[in-house]
């Protein structure tokens, strides 16, 4: 199982090789096509989900604040997000005179590509994964650091004090909170013994007690720390310091307008989905229904996709719910929370899980280590 890397790209490569390879299309072209097509599908999917999340965010915030929310465009306002997208497309694209034009134009794409790159290794249930890298989890952690580069770049290139402050804050915040995120993900890697996302999902079971979150008491804590610190990593309230509407106007994206702003916005909302799906896949069993995803028919695979989304969507809703509950922390509180609480606790979780694995021969409370 170790060296078999099943993925949508591999399947597509096989199909294309059978049909086009016979006609004499070069192998390199088939490889590029086999990877490009799933990438664009996932790009479209995450953008659509980001759009729907903006609708959900506005609707839920309205419910929480006794308001109505968007309800004019389409039934129940469901078409609000395409309308917003079209509006942003039609807006004038303004680049300030004093801005560093090249960096200013590049920054939104970096921010957006970081979230889209992370979505490439997310197992959507069944065999639906663009690339099942054997370093999938590390890949996610690495590409989410790209976000900082984009934020700092946009803050610096805007030549605006608010934007620069937002960029600097995001650098401090995201770099700090990456440590607890990575450490909590490492606790799962200890149990599963692999970095591949699909294998982590397959190592878990369909029932809650077979999920890694309930493997031992420390993984529960690790899951909570992972969820909160990933809130910080994607700049959601109560950790939205880079944006901080009331202090920094809108932070790093003050000077952006039109579609460039929309890219920042879409990146923010698709990162909610990416984080929720990461949590669902790593801690909550992903789309595992107790069947081998590669041996099952398409019907079972679609059930797996349904199970995956049934776990991801509630996590997205919790993210939104937290935003409309808690006010923004003070910046020193945010740093103290990370360095004094999250990092020591997540490190303790990692070590305790390691000791647990040694003491109980890898078995969890209910989870059993598979026999080699």
């Amino acid at each position, binding site marked *: 199982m170790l060296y078999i890397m099943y993925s949508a790209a591999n399947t597509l490569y096989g199909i294309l090789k059978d049909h086009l390879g016979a006609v004499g299309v070069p192998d390199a072209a088939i490889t590029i096509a086999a990877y490009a097509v799933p990438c664009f599908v996932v790009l479209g999917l995450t953008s659509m989900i980001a759009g729907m999340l903006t609708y959900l965010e506005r609707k839920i915030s309205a*419910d*929480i604040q*006794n308001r*109505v929310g968007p309800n004019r465009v389409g039934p129940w306002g469901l078409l609000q997000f395409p309308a917003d997208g079209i509006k942003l497309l039609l807006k004038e694209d303004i680049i300030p005179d004093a801005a560093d034009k090249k960096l200013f134009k590049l920054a939104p794409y970096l921010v957006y590509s970081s979230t889209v790159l992370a979505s490439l290794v997310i197992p959507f249930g069944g065999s639906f994964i663009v690339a099942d890298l054997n370093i999938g989890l590390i890949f996610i952690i690495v590409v989410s650091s790209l976000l900082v580069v984009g934020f700092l770049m946009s803050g610096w290139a805007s030549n605006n004090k608010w934007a620069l402050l937002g960029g600097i804050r995001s650098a401090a915040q995201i770099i700090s909170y990456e440590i607890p995120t990575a450490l909590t993900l490492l606790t799962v890697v200890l149990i599963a013994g692999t970095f591949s996302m699909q294998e982590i999902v397959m190592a878990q079971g369909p029932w809650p007690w077979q999920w890694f979150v309930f493997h031992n008491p420390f993984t529960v804590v690790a899951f909570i720390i992972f969820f909160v610190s990933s809130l910080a990593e994607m700049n959601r309230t109560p950790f939205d310091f880079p944006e901080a509407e009331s202090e920094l106007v809108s932070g790093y994206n003050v000077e952006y307008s039109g579609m460039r702003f929309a890219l920042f916005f879409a990146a923010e909302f698709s990162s909610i989905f990416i984080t929720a799906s990461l949590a669902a896949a790593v801690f909550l069993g992903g789309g595992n229904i107790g069947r081998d995803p590669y041996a099952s028919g398409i019907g079972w695979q679609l059930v797996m996709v349904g199970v995956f989304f049934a776990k991801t969507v509630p996590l997205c809703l919790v993210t939104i719910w*937290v935003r*409309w*509950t*808690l006010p923004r922390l003070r910046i020193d509180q945010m740093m103290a929370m990370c360095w004094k*609480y999250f990092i020591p606790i997540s490190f303790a979780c990692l070590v305790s899980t390691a000791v647990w694995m040694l003491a109980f021969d890898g078995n969890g409370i209910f989870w059993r280590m598979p026999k080699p």
Partner: protein
Amino acid sequence: MNAVARYFRNIGDAVATTLTGMRITLRYWVKEPAITVEYPDRLGAGRTARDLVAERFRGFLQVRLNSCIGCLQCMRTCPINCIRIVVDKRPEGRMLSRFDVNQAKCMYCGLCVEVCPTEAIVFTKRFEGACYDIRDLRVRHVTSPVPVAQLQRKEQP
């Protein structure tokens, strides 16, 4: 030891207060209905814009010509001269030939309403004054000359 205890109490406090807040927002999310009034077009069955305003609301001025005695007190008391009245003396008596209220200028102070001895000028609940030309807000209450109302003698005891 004190510092250690404080460390763990901080964690407990953070979790407890977050959960309290999230329970409150969950209640508002799930249970509490919206209180928004969707003003122009979705006010609910049978409700109109005039039902939204309070009792004794100061809306557009209305003139009851059958009780106006043409005393011009409202015109004189108006601080911004938005009322213009012309009373003609004719053989058949005094005639109101003009009674304009410029609602664009009116500041809804209510002095004219208070000063009117016969309650001929009153507030209505109408508040929607949007129009394409500001001159449309000069409301002409008299289109053709009408005789003023006669003062009525009080009943002798």
